[in-house]
C-alpha cells in the first residue's frame, strides 16, 4: 500500500538517557527510506514508537496525515519484520501466513488465495506445511516478510532484516526486496546499520546518530554532499580521509593548506575562525604525474588487496590516508604522487562538525 508517514518532534528517554531527541522525519508514499545509524543511535527506539509498541514521551506519529499516538499497535495497519524474524515456531508456514489475515477477519477462499500468492512470490510454496521451528534463517526471513506483506500493510517496517544472514544470501535478498516493493507500490522504512546496504536499496536515507537525524537525502546527496562530519565518515567504504588543515588568509582571499597540498583557494565559501579539518574520500585522492600542478609526493606504507581494487595507505603528514587504485599498479614502499580531486574536498568545522563542500577550487602549486 502507498501510505505516508510523518514523525514530529518525537522524543523518548530511558532512565535519564535521551534516546530520541525531537526527531522529525517524513516518508513519502511508495518511498524506500532507510534509517541508518550505528548501534545505540536510537533507530530501533524510533521504530518501536512508530509501531506503537513503545509510547513516546512527546511528539507525534502520523500516518496518512492522522495522528496515531493513541491508536494501539494492532490497529495501525503497519507491518513489522523483526530482526530475529519471530516466526511462530509452533505453527506451520501456512498458519503463519494466515495469521494476520484471520486476525482481520479474512477467511476461507480469499485467505487461501492470498496466502498462496504471497507464498509463491517469496518462494515458500514447498515449505507451507513445515513447522516454524524447522526452518533455516533465510527461510524464516521470507516467512516473516510474507506474513506481513500478505496483510497489505500501509507501511512495511524492517528492523535490520539482513544482519542474521550470510553475506551470500544478502545480495539476492536485496534485489528481491526491491522488486517486491516496486510491484506492490509499498512504502518501506528500512532500519539498518549497514551503510552500503542502505545506499544500495534506498530512495532516500536518513542518517541518525545519538538520537537525532543528522541528514536526510538521496544516496547521491548523502555521499557527495554530507552535511556533518558524522555522515561524512559513516558513509562510504573505505571511509573518508580526515586530515588537519590551516585556513590561510591573504587579503580578501581565503585558502586552505594541508600537510601536502594547498593552498587551495576557497571561493564562494563562508569560512569563519576556528580550527578546521579537511575531508576527502579515498576515491577522490588521485594518482598524479609527479611535478604536475596540485600533485604531491608521498610514500606508500601498505596495500590492502580487495580484489577488484587496491587501497593504498600513504603518508600524509602525521598520519596515513587511503587512496583507491586499480589492482597491481602500485606496491608498498613505492613513492607516488597524489592530487586531490577538484570539487570533492570538504571543509569540516571542528567545533560542531559542520561540513561544507569546496565546489570550486584553484589549486596552486
Amino acid at each position, binding site marked *: 500500500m502507498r501510505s505516508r508517514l510523518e514523525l514530529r518532534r518525537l522524543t523518548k528517554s530511558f532512565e535519564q538517557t535521551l534516546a530520541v531527541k525531537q526527531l522529525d522525519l517524513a516518508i513519502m508514499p511508495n518511498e524506500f527510506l532507510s534509517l541508518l545509524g550505528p548501534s545505540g543511535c536510537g533507530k530501533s527506539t524510533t521504530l518501536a514508537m512508530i509501531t*506503537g509498541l*513503545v*509510547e513516546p514521551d512527546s511528539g507525534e506519529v502520523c500516518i496518512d496525515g492522522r495522528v496515531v499516538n493513541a491508536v*494501539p499497535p494492532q490497529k495501525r495497519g503497519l507491518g513489522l519484520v523483526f530482526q530475529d524474524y519471530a516466526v511462530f515456531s509452533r505453527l506451520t508456514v501456512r498458519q503463519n501466513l494466515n495469521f494476520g489475515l484471520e486476525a482481520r477477519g479474512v477467511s476461507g477462499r480469499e485467505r487461501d488465495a492470498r496466502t498462496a500468492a504471497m507464498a509463491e512470490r517469496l518462494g515458500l510454496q514447498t515449505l507451507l506445511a513445515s513447522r516454524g521451528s524447522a526452518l533455516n534463517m533465510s527461510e524464516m526471513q521470507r516467512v516473516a516478510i510474507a506474513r506481513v506483506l500478505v496483510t497489505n500493510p500501509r507501511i512495511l517496517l524492517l528492523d535490520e532484516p539482513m544482519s542474521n544472514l550470510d553475506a551470500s544470501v544478502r545480495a539476492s535478498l536485496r534485489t528481491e526486496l526491491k522488486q517486491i516493493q516496486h510491484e506492490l507500490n509499498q512504502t518501506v522504512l528500512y532500519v539498518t546499520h549497514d551503510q552500503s546496504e542502505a545506499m544500495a536499496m534506498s530512495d532516500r536515507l536518513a542518517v541518525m546518530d545519538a538520537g537525532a537525524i543528522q541528514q536526510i537525502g538521496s544516496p547521491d546527496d548523502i555521499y557527495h554532499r554530507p552535511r556533518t562530519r558524522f555522515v561524512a565518515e559513516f558513509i562510504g567504504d573505505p571511509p573518508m580521509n580526515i586530515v588537519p588543515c590551516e585556513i590561510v588568509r591573504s587579503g580578501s582571499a581565503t585558502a586552505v593548506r594541508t600537510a601536502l597540498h594547498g593552498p587551495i583557494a576557497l571561493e564562494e565559501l563562508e569560512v569563519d575562525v576556528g580550527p578546521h579539518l579537511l575531508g576527502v574520500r579515498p576515491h577522490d585522492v588521485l594518482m598524479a604525474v609527479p611535478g604536475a600542478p596540485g600533485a604531491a609526493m608521498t610514500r606508500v606504507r601498505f596495500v590492502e588487496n580487495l580484489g577488484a581494487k587496491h587501497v593504498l595507505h600513504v603518508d600524509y603528514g602525521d598520519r596515513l590516508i587511503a587512496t583507491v587504485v586499480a589492482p597491481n599498479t602500485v606496491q608498498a614502499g613505492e613513492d607516488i604522487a597524489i592530487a586531490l580531486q577538484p570539487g570533492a574536498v570538504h571543509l569540516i568545522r571542528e567545533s560542531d562538525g559542520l561540513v561544507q563542500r569546496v565546489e570550486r577550487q584553484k589549486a596552486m602549486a
Partner: protein
Amino acid sequence: MADGLVTRRQSRWVVILKRVTVVIAMLISFFPIFWLISTAFKPFDEWASWPPVWVSGHPTLQNFRIVFFPEAAREFAAAEKGSLDYKVSGSAWKAFGDSALIASLATAFSISFGTLAAYSIARFATGGPNFPFQFLTVRMMPPIAVVVPIVALFAVLRLSDTYFGMILAYTAFTLPFSIWMIRSFIEEIPSELEGVAMVHGASRAKAFLTVTLPLVRGGVLATALFVFILNWSEFLFALVLTSGRILTVTLQVANYVSASSGKLYGVQAAMGTVSTIPVIVFGYLIQKHLVRGLTFGAVKR
C-alpha cells in the same frame, strides 16, 4: 516484565480488577491455614459452636499444652469426661522426636546414595539412556499397592514397627527424587571442570569432591530439604508400617482425629499447626527449587 499480551494502555479498572482477583486468590490460599491456626488458640467451648467463632475472643494455649504434656491431657479428659474419650497417650514430643530421627536419617541416606548414583548417571550415563526412567516408574506406582507386600516382607524380616524399617522404606521412596534432582544439578556443571582437575593429577573421586561438589552444594542442600519435607509429611507408610512403638507427627495428627471422632478440634488444630512449621520453613527456603523437584528436574526456574 510486560508481555505482548499486556498492552501498554490498560484502563485503571482492568488493573484494579486484576489486583483484586489476585487478592482473592491469596485469601483462598490462606484461609484454611488461618482457620487451623485460629482454632488452635480457641478454648474448648468455642471449638464447635454455632455460628462458628472466626477469631477467638479468649485465645488460649491450652490446646498446645494438651498436645505436649500428658498431664494436661489427663486433666482435660477428666474435666470433660463423658463428652470425649481419646486414647492418645503418647505426647507429641515422641511424635516429633521419632519424625525428626527417621526423616533426618532417611534424608541423609537418600542424599548420599542419591548423589553417588546421580553423579554416575550424569557423567557416565551408567545403565544406558533408559536407566533413570526406572526411578520415574517407581514414582508412578501407588504406594498402597507396594505397601501390602512390603508389610509381608517386613514381617518376615522383623522390620515392622522398627526405626530401621521405616528409614529403609523412606530412603527407597525418596531416592528417585534425590537422583533426578541432583542429576539435573550436576548436569549444569560442565564436565570439563573435572577434566581440568584430573589433568592436574587428581583422581576422578577427588575431582568430583573438590571441584563439582562445592558447585552443586546449593542444589544438593535444596534437594536434602526437599526430601526431608517429603519424609516429614509422609503418612501412608507410617500408618501401615508401624503399630504403636513408633509415632510420627502425621500419625499423631490422624490419631487425634480418629480417636476422638474428630471432635477435638482445638487440639487437632494445635498439633497440625506445630507439625507443619518445619515444612513451611524449609519450603520457603527452597522455594526456587520446588518446581524442579516436583517435576523431576523437567522444569527449571
